């Protein structure tokens, strides 16, 4: 009975069988008479929208991701796994989870043109509810995609980043409570994606399980031609679509694949299956059979 099955199941597996609390699982997953619905494909099903008794294709509405973000993640998938979906044995790639968040709201402050370049500043709000407590941050980057089809002379951009605290009184665009600026030079012309490492900023926030991250990011892009002309300004505004936030994580849960664990597992069980004579050979005639077989071989 389900009860005995629960008690017999080691705790590492019972977590996999935990039923999503408030979901009405379809008959496929909840066989007749079973008290608790079991997630048959635990990790994959946990991300399934909770269903009533309908069939699967009437899924709960799902926000559609940004197409650029989707393109980037498909590229990351191709680099990390084979066509059959087997993770590549890549020593440098310690992560087993990568999450990409697009900002859920932004307030664009267009400043006047301070220097030769164009200052483009946005306040961004990222909601990190999907990050679980067992997912530990390895690295996080702001991901800018540039529309390189726009003709431009070479330009270098300097990025100023300030992370904001959210206080209850503030509107969607929070007031700056503490900001740390850092500059990063990169050539826009050559790249389609630019990753700006913000790990040091986000580490403390994610470690304290912060769910909402407010950021103000501004770019000063010094064009090759000092005289700011409207065409190039358009380029920068067009190129700087709001960035996505990329988190490289190490999921420490049982279901996640741990490279080091699989290496350790193989070391623990050397040549498998082991050749072994069993104490019951005479009863089952195994010894005699084995000898005859060996001779025959």
């Amino acid at each position, binding site marked *: 009975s389900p009860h005995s099955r629960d008690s017999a199941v080691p705790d590492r597996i019972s977590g996999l069988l935990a039923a999503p609390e408030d979901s009405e699982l379809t008959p496929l997953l909840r066989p007749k008479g079973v008290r608790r619905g079991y997630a048959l494909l635990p*990790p*994959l099903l946990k*991300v*399934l*929208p909770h269903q009533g008794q309908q*069939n*699967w294709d009437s*899924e*709960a509405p*799902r*926000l*559609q*991701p940004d197409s650029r*973000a*989707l393109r980037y*993640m*498909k590229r*990351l*998938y191709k680099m*990390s*796994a084979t*066509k*059959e*979906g*087997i*993770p590549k044995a890549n020593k440098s790639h310690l992560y*087993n*989870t*990568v*999450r*990409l*968040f*697009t900002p859920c709201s932004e307030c664009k402050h267009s400043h006047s043109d301070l220097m030769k370049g164009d200052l483009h500043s946005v306040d961004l709000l990222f909601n990190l*509810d*999907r990050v679980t407590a067992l997912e530990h941050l390895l690295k996080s980057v702001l991901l800018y995609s540039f529309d390189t089809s726009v003709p431009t002379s070479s330009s270098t951009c300097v990025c100023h980043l300030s992370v904001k605290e959210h206080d209850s009184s503030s509107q969607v665009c929070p007031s700056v409570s503490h900001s740390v600026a850092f500059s990063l030079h990169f050539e826009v012309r050559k790249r389609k994606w630019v990753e700006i490492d913000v790990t040091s900023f986000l580490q403390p926030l994610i470690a304290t399980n912060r769910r909402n991250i407010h950021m103000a990011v501004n770019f000063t892009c010094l064009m090759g031609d000092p005289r700011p002309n409207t065409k190039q300004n358009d380029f920068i505004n067009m190129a700087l679509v709001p960035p996505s936030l990329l988190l490289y994580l190490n999921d420490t849960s*049982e*279901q*996640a*694949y*741990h490279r080091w*664990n*699989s290496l350790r597992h193989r070391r623990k069980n050397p040549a*498998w*299956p*082991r*050749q*072994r*004579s*069993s*104490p*019951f*050979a005479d*009863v*089952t*005639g*195994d010894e005699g*059979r*084995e000898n*005859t077989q060996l001779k*025959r071989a």
Partner: protein
Amino acid sequence: SRRRRDGNLKEAPATPPYNLSEYFKQFLFPQNECELHSFRLSFSQLKWDRWIIAPHRYSPQYCKGDCPRVVGHRYGSPVHTMVQNLIYEKLDPSVPKPSCVPAEYSPLSVLTIEPDGSIVYKEYEDMIATKCTCR
């Protein structure tokens, strides 16, 4: 020794010609012995391709077949398997025979869209059976 052997031969009753095929039958592997079987599914069949972006196809494989009585040396089975088989054969047939189950797996990388629209790349453990055993 030759005299003794001839003596033995004269005494030994003529045994019926032994049917060799009968003799070798006991060494043949059972027809449907426990082994790994391939199975390929695409997430579109389950209508999950709207939120599982990659891979398009997935081969979980599965183990099926009878466990031979003597499994010690072929499946890396623990001695308990033989004990269980003995119990089933000699003591209590209500105790189940050893079953053909996966012994090792390989992971799978999955790219999915989360309900909030974010995108996640995840590597899951134990998603593809790669070896079978009798337990």
